């Protein structure tokens, strides 16, 4: 197994491990209980409401029904899910508060999908040899689920940074109520189990602030001072001094705080208890808690579960609320600017661990279970109810299979679909990119503004600037840079856990004044926050030194209190005017972006986060270090994703070409895997003769791409030769093709289930069999057992297999329905796991078909520089131009492909590969290795010259047809060519006659159903412009819905013509009903759809008349 590859999928695996090992128990403990009315007559008042609660839930390892280990390959091949049983215990507690158990129930919660290579997977820790033994790839790294045989990846999504107050302006907030302004502070509060809730502060034009939260998908507002007073026993004075923090000169602030305190006062309520009682009474109805709860308990329930949930302690909640208020006033006043919520600095990642939140469905399950029976005293019914309805595994399966979220709370997410994607094994590059892709969220895809799609400087080093698709998802679907890591949750990392514990006292020792000591600070003090909790404040002058110290210790790792994955985001006061709200914000939470740079002070590697990067001074090259520089990048290519880093000499290309190459590499027919024999994917591509590129970047071997090559080194001439190379077409040497250039095949797996679509009675009565083998004359196609021969070429319409039905006592031959010749590679018989059958009865099987896909004219090829082209002609070798040494190109492309696209990298690649081929060495093409002083052309030119070639790669060439020398020397060398998956065989469309639409009688659309190609408006326009009316008539009527209609010239109607069939002869007679005669009737030619229009109009009482001359 490759450590580098494993690193790429680590965020997924860590996250799943967190889910299975840590979060599951946390969320189970935190799941709100279900209260049941105890209807037993002898119940006293404290026992009126019983409580139903999960005690614990565990996930084991995947097993089969016979308790043997289930391995991923078995799930893949049989089209089932790779999942492990989840078991839980539910406790029935005798009162709403006490923990006295009445009874516990063991419940089977169904099979939970298991991520491959996670701690719950059998493959974890296996060596390459063991993996191969288990029919896996040698380099299998996991990180995905297997759902119904498909490999599914949970898509990483961008979320707002956890537990950090972000100041925003949103025009939409103005219509939240009277006086509401666009100003607000939002905070995404993340619980220890990594489920989250977003809280907001809103600024009202008169200076008040209200607190907004979501509860059961509804918004609620609370005056912020009321909330402050509900959290701790406090006074107006304390609130005032805390918010103003000694800055009494600032009348803007003092006025507004005073006003807020005055205006938000509810009559007669002063103490914490009174206010809690008041809040509780407001939410009693909504909270849906048992009647025995007091108002205070209800209010506490609301505070615990919906207000700033990352901090369980009320004093902490109070403190951060104060900071949020301060920040909001500072922004409204204009002292600080708004934060940019679209910038990576305020982002983190949503990971598969959010599966946990999905456990909330279990709550609904309880309710269902309870509703199923009326009284609590019927134990048996109770147990039965659990057995029936607690299949959470099924929900998870559905979630991963479709990517759709079914949730009552919305889980603080902005979308309900698109959470899971298929990890397409088209080629290895595409496959591995799935694990690095990160989406901004479906909600943003619908936004018309393009600002969110912009490449922000804040994302430097974390998100790849090159690797994003063009078109609709541009800028929304990004990819992590190769060096970017996603932090683990502190609970998974002992060092980080220890650090969080020790850090506060470390900070106190280094200049931070604890909030526990005093609440009165200097006006110029900065808040110091750790994971969204106010630790204390620090004097402005001391902050920089503390931050430098923390960063130094972070890089050395010597200090236990400073974990290496801590982010030290320091927004200095001197840069805060109109900028970020000043403070030191420390984060040790999971799911943050981090990347490695060199700390120049310690000379060691340091992990930095996007929020701290903003104020850091990092040089890209070591020679660029200045006095103020504190850090240095590991390499200038560190900003690229794995895939963008594979483009050779990408620094020489025009930037969009590198983007196109990222797209195109993902469409190449390459090597997706080596275990073809053990896969039943719907479609797999394979290229026969693949090579390792002569010219490649460092990452090519680092990320083991050479183990999965996706092209071949082709001899290329850049010349305009025959005319068959115009407009991005390319000529391929026919002999090169015959020797195997670009040869490939496609594998398709056809699942056949004989019982599919049959009624229950008929099921299991039909199976593969060929009892009539002596008489049916099918020996040529079908074997004795009723299945086709392995290795046979099967053609459309030929007999495929035979089945025998015991009901009809008849042998039926099924024909091959495919439209393409195929080889039968393999037949796998699937056993039914649900029904017990005699082992000889075959009802379900998979046929692996192999299709020949050698290049044909029209197939697509591309180099690695966004230069795609179609094969236009297989040109005979003797007609190909040749060099003096007798070399003939495999590929000819037109020089016009270069000037406008400026893919100089491709020219350099050709040069480098030519030199590499002569000298017998692989060339390094990593970006930014060459510069003006040390140019690539010089480097490779010298190599060429040494070998007796022209310095610039040009060679005199002779025409293959006339034998004469060309007037110009031709640029000639070697270029790595990829074959793209777009093939004529999948796309050609042809039709003479065929199915028509029932209503219009026009040809139907769609290639699959033999439809036509639309002759649309623009095509019509061009025929009109050419004045080719006959041609127009031919296309739009004769070849489409030509029909003959009878019309009455007198009344001009087609609908009034009645056709009568004579009773005594075969002839029909027509008459016009309105004119009562047939003498004006005449036949005209019409498009049939016109008669339909007449009928439609007639239905709304409009008569359409034709004037016939």
């Amino acid at each position, binding site marked *: 197994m490759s450590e580098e590859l494993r690193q790429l999928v680590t965020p997924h695996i860590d996250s799943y491990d967190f889910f299975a090992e840590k979060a599951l128990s946390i969320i189970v403990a935190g799941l709100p209980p279900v209260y049941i009315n105890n209807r037993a007559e002898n119940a006293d008042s404290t026992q009126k409401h019983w409580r139903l609660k999960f005690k614990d839930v565990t996930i084991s390892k995947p097993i089969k029904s016979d308790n043997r280990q289930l391995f991923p390959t078995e799930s893949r091949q049989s089209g089932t899910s790779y999942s492990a049983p989840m078991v839980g215990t539910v406790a029935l507690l005798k009162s709403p508060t006490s923990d006295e158990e009445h009874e516990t129930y063991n419940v089977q919660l169904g099979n939970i999908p298991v991520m491959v290579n996670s701690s719950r997977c059998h493959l974890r820790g296996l060596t390459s040899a063991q993996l191969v033994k288990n029919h896996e790839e040698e380099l299998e790294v996991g990180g995905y689920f297997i759902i119904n045989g498909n490999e599914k990846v949970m898509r990483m999504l961008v979320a707002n940074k956890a537990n950090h107050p972000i100041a925003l302006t949103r025009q939409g907030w103005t219509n939240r109520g009277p006086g509401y302004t666009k100003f607000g502070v939002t905070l995404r509060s993340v619980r220890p189990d990594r489920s989250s809730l977003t809280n907001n502060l809103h600024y009202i034009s008169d200076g008040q602030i209200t607190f907004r939260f979501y509860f059961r998908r509804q918004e609620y507002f609370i005056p912020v001072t009321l909330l402050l007073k509900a959290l701790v026993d406090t006074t107006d004075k304390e609130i005032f001094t805390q918010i103003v923090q000694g800055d009494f000169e600032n009348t803007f602030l003092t006025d507004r705080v005073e006003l807020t305190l005055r205006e938000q006062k509810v009559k007669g309520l002063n103490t914490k208890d009174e206010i809690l009682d008041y809040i509780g009474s407001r939410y009693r109805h909504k909270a849906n808690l048992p009647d025995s709860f007091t108002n205070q308990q209800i209010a506490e329930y609301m505070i615990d579960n919906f207000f700033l949930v990352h901090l369980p302690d009320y004093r902490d909640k109070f403190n951060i609320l104060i900071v949020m208020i301060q920040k909001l006033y500072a922004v409204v006043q204009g002292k600080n600017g708004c934060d940019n919520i679209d910038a990576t600095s305020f982002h983190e990642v949503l990971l598969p661990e959010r599966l946990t939140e999905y456990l909330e469905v279990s709550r609904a399950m309880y309710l269902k279970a309870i509703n199923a029976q009326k009284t609590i005293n019927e134990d048996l019914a109770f147990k039965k109810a659990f057995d029936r309805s607690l299949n959470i595994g099924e929900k998870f399966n559905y979630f991963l299979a479709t990517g759709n979220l079914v949730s009552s709370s919305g889980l603080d997410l902005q979308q309900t679909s698109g959470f899971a994607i298929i990890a397409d094994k088209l080629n290895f590059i595409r496959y591995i990119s799935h694990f690095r892709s990160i989406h901004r969220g479906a909600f943003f895809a619908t936004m018309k503004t393009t600002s969110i799609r912009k490449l922000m400087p804040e994302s430097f080093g974390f998100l790849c600037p090159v690797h994003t698709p063009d078109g609709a998802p541009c800028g929304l679907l990004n990819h992590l840079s190769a060096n970017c890591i996603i932090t683990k949750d502190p609970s998974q990392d002992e060092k980080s856990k220890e650090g969080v514990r020790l850090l506060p006292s470390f900070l106190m020792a280094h200049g931070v004044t604890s909030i526990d000591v005093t609440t009165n600070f200097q006006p110029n003090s900065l808040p110091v926050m750790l994971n969204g909790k106010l630790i204390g404040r620090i004097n402005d002058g001391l902050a920089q030194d503390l931050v430098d110290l923390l960063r130094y210790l972070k890089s050395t790792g010597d200090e236990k209190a400073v974990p290496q994955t801590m982010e030290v985001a320091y927004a200095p006061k001197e840069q805060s005017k109109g900028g970020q709200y000043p403070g030191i914000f420390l984060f040790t939470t999971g799911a943050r972006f981090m990347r490695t740079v060199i700390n120049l002070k310690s000379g060691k590697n340091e992990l930095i986060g996007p929020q701290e990067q903003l104020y850091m001074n990092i040089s890209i090259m070591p020679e660029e270090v200045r006095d103020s520089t504190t850090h240095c990048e590991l390499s200038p290519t560190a900003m690229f994703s794995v895939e963008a880093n594979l483009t050779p000499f990408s620094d020489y290309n025009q930037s969009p070409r590198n983007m196109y190459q990222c797209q195109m590499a993902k469409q190449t027919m390459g090597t997706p895997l080596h275990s073809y024999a053990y896969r039943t994917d719907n479609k797999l591509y394979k290229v*026969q003769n693949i090579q390792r590129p002569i010219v490649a970047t460092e990452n090519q071997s680092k990320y083991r791409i050479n183990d999965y090559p996706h092209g071949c080194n082709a001899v290329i001439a850049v010349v305009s030769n025959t005319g068959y190379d115009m407009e991005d077409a390319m000529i391929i040497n*026919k*002999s*090169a093709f*015959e*020797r*195997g250039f670009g*040869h490939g*095949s496609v594998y398709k797996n056809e699942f056949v289930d004989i019982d599919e679509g049959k009624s229950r009675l008929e099921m299991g009565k039909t199976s593969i069999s060929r009892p009539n083998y002596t008489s049916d004359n099918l020996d040529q196609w079908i074997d004795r057992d009723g299945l086709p021969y392995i*290795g046979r070429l099967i053609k459309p319409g030929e007999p495929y297999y035979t089945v025998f039905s015991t009901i009809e006592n008849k042998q039926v031959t099924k024909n091959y329905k495919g439209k393409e010749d195929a*080889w039968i*590679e393999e037949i796998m018989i699937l056993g039914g796991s649900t029904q017990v059958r005699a082992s000889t009865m075959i009802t379900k099987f998979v046929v692996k078909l*192999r299709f*020949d896909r050698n290049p044909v004219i029209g197939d697509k090829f591309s180099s690695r520089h966004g230069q795609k082209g179609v094969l236009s002609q297989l040109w*005979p*070798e*003797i007609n190909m131009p*040749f*060099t*003096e*040494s*007798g070399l003939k190109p495999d590929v000819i492309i037109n020089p016009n492909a270069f000037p406008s696209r400026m893919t100089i990298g491709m020219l350099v690649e050709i040069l480098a590969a030519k030199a590499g081929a002569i000298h017998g060495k692989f060339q390094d093409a990593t970006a930014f290795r060459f510069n003006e002083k040390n140019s690539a052309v010089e480097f490779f030119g010298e190599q*060429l*010259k040494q070998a*007796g*070639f*022209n*310095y610039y790669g*040009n*060679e*005199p060439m*002779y025409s*293959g*047809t*006339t*034998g*004469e*020398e060309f007037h110009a*020397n031709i640029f000639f060398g070697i270029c790595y060519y990829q074959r793209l998956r777009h093939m004529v065989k999948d796309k050609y469309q042809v039709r003479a006659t065929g199915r028509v639409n029932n209503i219009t009688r026009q040809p139907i659309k769609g290639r699959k159903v033999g439809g036509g190609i639309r002759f649309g408006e623009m095509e019509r326009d061009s025929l009109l412009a050419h004045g080719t009316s006959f041609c127009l008539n031919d296309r739009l009527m004769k070849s489409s819905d030509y029909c003959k209609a009878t019309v009455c010239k007198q009344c001009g109607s087609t609908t009034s013509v009645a056709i009568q069939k004579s009773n005594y002869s075969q002839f029909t007679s027509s008459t016009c009903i309105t004119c009562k005669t047939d003498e004006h009737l005449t036949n005209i030619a019409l498009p049939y759809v016109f008669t339909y229009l007449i009928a439609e109009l007639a239905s709304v009482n409009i008569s359409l008349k034709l004037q016939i001359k």
Partner: protein
Amino acid sequence: MSHTLYRHPNLEILEIKNDSITFILSNTDISVANALRRVMIAEVPTMCIDLVEFEANNSVLVDEFIAHRLGLIPLTSHKVDQFNYTRDCSCAERCDNCSVEFKLNARCNDHSYSVTSLDLLSQNDHVIPVGSSDGRPDTVIPIVKLHRGQEVKLRAIAKKGVGKEHAKWSPACVATYQFQPKIVINQNRMDELTDRQKEEWVQSCPANVYQFNAHQRQQVTIEDQMRCMFCMECKKKADSLGKPDLVSIEQKTDKFIFNVETNGSLKPEEVVLSAIQIIKRKLTDIQTQLQDTVN
């Protein structure tokens, strides 16, 4: 070019090796030289496997891939003239006069086994895979590697064909010619250059055509003008030195240096002779047909 009318083409062999030949064709036109080149590549017949019937194959390579590889194995075709093209043969499907049958029956009982051209057993001793007669491990051609329990069993039919139809039948790996260069150094101009400039100028040629003898009278001489590939780098260099007439390079378009390499199916001289024969036959055909029409 009136004198070309009465030219007598001349062929002078410079070198013959086991698999390559170099000769000079002179006193003729480009078209003739190119015709010879084209015929050597595309129309010299050889024998190649063209039809494969698989009986068993559970190796990792698929049938058509193995068949393709078998086709590309060069077969010794010195007796190719004794065979008919199958399409011209009088037999119904195929016979020994138009084809050669091969058998391959390999099974791996050890850990692994490489099936090579040695396993390809021919029915005709004259038509065998190239390199299999001397049995040297470096000259055999690998076909497929087998694992324990895997087996390949097949029957392959080799037929006569030409490279025009499929590249496998082409005996010539390389068949190329170049014009003989005529390089004249203007020694008067050369003397105007400093030693350093002379050195630079000599270095400018990537093919090392020139030689600068620093010890012998500072003379620039032509070491081997055949090396010249007409890249005109020396001309460009001369221009940049301000001496455009320092050297003149001309192509002698009636003298061609041919270089032919074969894949071993035929000897290089056989390829050339066969090609000339084919051109002759084609011309004779035209002649007879023309005469027939005229008469």
